[in-house]
């Protein structure tokens, strides 16, 4: 874990150098997110569990991109299938529009 972070730190330095005077704008840059489903293998991605899937859609009902949620490619695919199935069964909204 620490090794990865060190590695990341190095990269972060480069970027920060490039950013120059933007003053701490890249504060969250160095946080490596770990795919939740890789971390806890007991949690299964299932369209029948809208509670779980809700954390992978925005308030507007759109899917959260990998770069935000930190999911790995494999699990992001599974999430996207599950979300689409849950939308079909009206367990998740397709879109949350304005009034």
């Amino acid at each position, binding site marked *: 874990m620490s090794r990865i972070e060190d590695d990341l730190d190095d990269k*972060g330095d480069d970027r920060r150098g490039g950013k120059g005077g933007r003053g701490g704008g890249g504060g969250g840059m160095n946080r490596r997110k770990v795919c939740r489903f890789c971390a806890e293998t007991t949690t299964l991605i299932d369209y029948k569990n809208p509670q779980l899937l809700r954390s992978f859609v925005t308030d507007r009902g759109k899917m959260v991109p990998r770069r*935000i949620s930190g999911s790995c490619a494999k699990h992001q695919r599974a999430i996207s299938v599950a979300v689409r199935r849950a939308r079909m069964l009206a367990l998740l909204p397709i879109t949350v529009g304005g009034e």
Partner: protein
Amino acid sequence: MARLQSLRDAPGTSREYETVYILRPNTANDGVAEINTKVKGIIEGMGGKILKVDNWGKRRLAYEVAKERKGIYLYWRYLATAGVVEETERNLRMLDLVIRFMTVRLDESINPEARPTEIDDASYERAATTAADEEDLFLSRGDAAPAGDDDDEYENPVAEAPIGQEN
């Protein structure tokens, strides 16, 4: 209905499917039972084996379906061969009480004898009884999801303390 068997499956095996269908919220228990009997008849009549029947109760729909805001969810898991899903869905489509249905294939090439069934006579009765209409029923399901576990995924990166410069 003569239908060409899929060559993908090993002979003598079947596929595992699950079907969820949504009924109109004002469907009485009799009506639910009637539809369940029909579905059961189709699956078993075509050589399928039912593994599980479940009534998820009356839930709020995330959006309006067929002018309804709520629906009764029925969940079936069964082993079947090609054509059973088609026939089941054809029948569901004809029923006016069914407002939405979906079938998902879970597994294939499985030996029907090797799968235990959770079904007894009482499960059909239970599946026909819709629990009282409580809005939080919707929230109380999904017990597998530990709430509040994913908070850190939504933190605003900018809100974090800036990392000290190394040079």
